[in-house]
């Protein structure tokens, strides 16, 4: 039976999942989504200098075309019944080795559709913005080539229908991220940050490889259809193991504790990259992975608890780090870690939280891309300055950037009716329904978020001018402000729209993720009010510290917590002490041992033989008869050896 048939027959029989149909008509063109940006990347990277002038247009056109295809497919999907929106698009058989068969085919369902729209939509806006941002970079064509490569890989990641195919996209986005973090690789810091990101991600990849290897042991396949259909009969121990392996992979890609250290350094990349890859899309791939594997996590309670713990720890860590950073991009990066922590936490809650994780993922994609591009716009006008202590009072000089950034700010701290209010509130509610400690973590995180974001807002746009002497801040060109306005608009309406429009995202995702309602321990109104109060309190503290008082141009020493937060809560120090230093020591001593020990033994033995042979040379008499005797003796030895061997 070929995989496609198997996929269908298995999926058709499991009641918890909607049936997957083989795509026909419009849906069979789903591959275009990936092919278009991939074509763009190939043209831009192999096309050479000829495309230096028009390359950015090719890059934008292919991604926008991909978005148009996505929009058409979305409308077509709306036309199908609620439980009949999953389509399988078989492309080609990848390989069959020793009975392990993998087919390259795409799965377009409600979950992947949501991601496809986010990736191509936000991706298009950021491509357009980059035309302006990268205008004076001599390697702009290559930049767009890498960006296109990223979009193609990310789309493959969310459209794959087999974990091993997902892994191609997973590594593809990792490569694009490596290339783009290190885009200005003449700077050693950028080159080091790029390598660090890749290596830390590879630690996560160990989890991915072991997860798929475990699936082979348990299910004999890595296709979604077979794995998800088999979970009910699988031993819980294996499901927990697979869940934990997947979580390790997710921690790497999504910069979750304990693999968070690379994300802050990744800010070395050009700001549009930080917006697209390190805020809106790639870093959320870990959340996608867990939600996609719902069938596994639903039945793996221990793994799910681990997901919740990782999410809760990271959401607090990221928020605390964000409070102490003076570099605007690093403050936002800490915030990204923290917000993804929220998503992870929600995903760890199981069917009660999957949809909210995705909901927050999408609104976060809107407002965080908005904030990063806003930060890029500020840098563009301030000679690439990133230190917020050298900003201040930019409101008047950059009115559009200020207005859109302010919308993003209100959205992320969760003021109604902006997008973040709806999505974060849902997660906080679900967290309280799970347990008091988890709920309090989420609530506390909201307060800290309000603090650090208010701090960013005050230090950048309000207060007094602390600009460098040669700074002449100016508003960015329209090609950069229009994407900001579009993302600003999405940050306003995205939350309510997704939650309420036509049944909302929860109903939309229900056939994929399931749905479950918990009873809240306290009335909803009380919870919402206390969340709002916490948020306002956080903002008020920031106002007391940074709004009412002038911001010093040189950072004060700060209390121990501030110092720790500035140093990323010693994440790098721990890695250095636990892995890097011992690793370097081990490597060095092995290199030494190799020359003295392993090779030394053998060269020593050879020398000894050499010494012996000098002595034995005297036996070389030149007489044939003595040679014949020696040969006879030798042959005798061989025969004796043979006889010995044959004896039992």
């Amino acid at each position, binding site marked *: 039976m070929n995989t496609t048939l198997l996929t269908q*027959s298995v999926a058709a029989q499991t009641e918890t999942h909607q049936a997957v149909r083989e795509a026909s008509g419009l849906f069979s063109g789903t591959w275009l989504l990936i092919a278009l940006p991939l074509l763009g990347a190939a043209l831009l990277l192999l096309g050479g200098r000829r495309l230096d002038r028009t390359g950015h247009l090719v890059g934008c056109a292919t991604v926008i075309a991909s978005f148009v295809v996505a929009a058409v497919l979305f409308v077509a999907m709306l036309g199908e019944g609620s439980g009949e929106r999953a389509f399988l698009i078989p492309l080609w058989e990848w*390989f069959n080795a020793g009975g392990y068969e993998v087919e390259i085919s795409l799965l377009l369902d409600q979950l992947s559709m949501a991601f496809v729209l986010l990736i191509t939509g936000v991706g298009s806006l950021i491509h357009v913005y980059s035309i302006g941002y990268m205008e004076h970079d001599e390697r702009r064509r290559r930049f767009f080539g890498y960006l296109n490569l990223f979009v193609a890989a990310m789309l493959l990641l969310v459209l794959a229908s087999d974990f091993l195919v997902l892994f191609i996209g997973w590594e593809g986005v990792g490569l694009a991220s490596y290339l783009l973090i290190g885009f200005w690789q003449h700077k*050693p810091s950028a080159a080091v940050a790029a390598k660090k990101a890749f290596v830390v991600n590879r630690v996560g990849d160990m989890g991915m490889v072991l997860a798929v290897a475990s699936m082979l042991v348990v299910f004999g396949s890595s296709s979604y259809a077979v794995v998800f*259909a088999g979970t009910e009969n699988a031993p819980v121990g294996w499901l927990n193991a697979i869940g934990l392996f997947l979580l390790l992979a997710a921690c790497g890609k999504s910069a979750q504790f304990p693999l968070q250290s690379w994300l802050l350094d990744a800010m070395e990349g050009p700001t549009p990259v930080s917006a697209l890859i390190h805020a809106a899309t790639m870093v959320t791939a870990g959340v996608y992975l867990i939600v996609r594997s719902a069938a596994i996590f639903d039945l793996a309670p221990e793994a799910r608890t681990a997901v919740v713990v990782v999410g809760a720890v990271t959401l607090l860590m990221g928020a605390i780090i964000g409070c102490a950073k003076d570099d605007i991009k690093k403050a936002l990066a800490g915030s990204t870690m923290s917000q993804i922590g929220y998503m992870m936490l929600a995903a760890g809650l199981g069917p009660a939280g999957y949809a909210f994780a995705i909901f927050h993922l999408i609104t976060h994609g809107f407002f965080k891309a908005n904030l990063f591009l806003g930060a890029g716009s500020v840098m563009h006008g301030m000679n690439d300055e990133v230190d917020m202590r050298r900003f201040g009072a930019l409101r008047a000089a950059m009115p559009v950037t200020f207005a859109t950034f302010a919308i993003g700010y209100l959205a992320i701290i969760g003021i109604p009716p902006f997008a973040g209010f709806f999505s974060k509130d849902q997660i906080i509610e679900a967290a309280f329904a799970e347990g008091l400690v988890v709920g309090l973590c989420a609530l506390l995180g909201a307060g800290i978020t309000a603090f650090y974001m208010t701090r960013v807002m005050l230090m950048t746009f309000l207060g007094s001018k602390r600009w460098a002497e040669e700074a002449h801040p100016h508003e960015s060109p329209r090609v950069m402000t229009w994407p900001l306005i579009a993302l600003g608009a999405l940050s306003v309406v995205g939350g309510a729209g997704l939650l309420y429009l036509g049944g909302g995202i929860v109903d939309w995702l229900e056939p994929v993720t399931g749905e479950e309602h918990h009873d809240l321990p306290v009335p909803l109104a009380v919870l919402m009010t206390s969340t709002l109060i916490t948020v306002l309190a956080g903002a008020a503290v920031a106002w007391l510290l940074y709004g009412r008082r002038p911001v010093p141009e040189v950072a004060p020493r700060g209390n121990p917590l501030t110092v720790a937060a500035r140093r990323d809560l010693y994440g790098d120090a721990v890695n250095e002490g636990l892995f890097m230093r011992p690793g370097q020591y081990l490597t060095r001593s092995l*290199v030494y041992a190799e020359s003295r020990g392993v090779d030394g033994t053998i060269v020593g033995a050879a020398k000894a033989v050499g010494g012996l042979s000098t002595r034995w040379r005297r036996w070389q008499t030149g007489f044939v008869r003595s040679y014949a005797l020696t040969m006879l003796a030798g042959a005798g030895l061989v025969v004796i050896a*043979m006889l010995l*061997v044959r004896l039992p």
Partner: protein
Amino acid sequence: MTFPWLTTLIAVPALGAVLTALVPAGRGRLAKQSALAFALLTLGVAVAVIAQFEIGGDRYQLGEQYTWIDALGIHWALGIDGIGAALVGLAAVATPIVALAMWPEADAERRDPKPFFALLLASEALILTAFLAKDLLLFYVVFEAMLIPLYFMIGMYGGPQRRYAALKFLLYNIFGGLVMLAAVIGVYVQSIDAGAPSFLLMDLMALDISANAQRWLFLGFMLAFAIKAPLWPFHTWLPDAAAEATPSNAAFLSGVADKVGTFGMIALAVPLFPVAAQDFAPVIVVLAVVSIVYGALLAIGQTDIKRLIGYVSISHFGFIVLGIFVLTGRGATGATFYMVNHGLATIALFVIAGFMIARRQSRMIADYGGIQKPAPKLAGAFLIAGLSGLALPPLATFLSEFLVIAATFEQYRAAGVIATVGIVLAALYVLWLYQRTMTGPVPEENAGTRDLGRRETMVVAPLLALILAIGVFPRTVVDVIDDGVAPTLAEVDVESPPPVVSVTDLVVEGNDH
């Protein structure tokens, strides 16, 4: 009589070697052209041979058998199976590429290039014979004979320590070979005892050798193959040879010639001595895992580009040996596929490193830096070759490495988990090397680094294109290999356990509802 395709496949490069050697002195360019032409012709014949290979056909196809020494039952016997086909393909593709890459190497050392190119073809002929030989003594003869051209290639054309490296290579391998000779004779004695003296593989595989005898004979074979492959702790000749041989020579050595060692393990040692292979498998698995981690750690610690790539090969050979001695179809297919991919990836790494060394006249990593700026194509090609070294999907190396890890995890959980550490270390040695050589500010002495020239592009482009194409469409190659692996492991009593949850059960169960 049908056309002797396999003999032709061997005769073409052998004839090429002779004719190239006969080119008059001083006509170096003609010698190079002749060698390249014959290498390409060999590739043509190889394509014709592989095109005739039938999946699901006889185990050994296109068989030829002529009596060589009747009294001892020695034959010129050739045949090709799926494993052989994959490796013949590798050798045939690699040789012209290597020939083109080593174009200026002899000139740089101010030596006559003629012998270099003639020896390359001679080694190719011997290596092809090893992949096709269906007579144990024939295999043994070419296994040893190929040391001669390789010895001279290293010893005549390499770096300052070339003599030492060449001698170490030779002594090491001859030592292994002699032990193997004793074992070869031992197998023959077994056939005498069985009343049918023969060196033909088909006859020898049918023998019923006692478990104890199998163990000794297996060890004799394995020592030779473990030195050749090389496996920790028999590996120390490789870094020296890799560092001292010219870059293309090193590429050919670890990319193609060393595959005879791993080929011997899967195509001879395992099917001839299935019981012993099973007995020793856990020990070899441990050595293989040590090789993976040890090679990778040593690669991280190197300061010399070519030594670094040499240690990378040791780590990768660890994966190949691991896949073979998991003794399941999936592992062996992954390992054989790995041999092909490792060949292509290693050749790419060595020849590009060679291009860099030709420009800068230094093997030391510390002398490089910032090359990306003056030579972006060179840097890009080096990065892609490096990424294939760290097994990034969808490059071909990924699939083979994953299959080996998955097969290992299925049989030996701990070994499987430790082997995955190799993928993290691989990222470190590849990307750190790239960082140190290609990125950062451009030092003055590197500012004028030339980008890839036309000949160099012709060397690199097909390699990288193949690595990508095989990764995206691996099906045919994997099917051919899988076809050869099944009968090879037929006598081995290791089964992949069925999946814990069987899908067919689910389908049946579903129908009951």
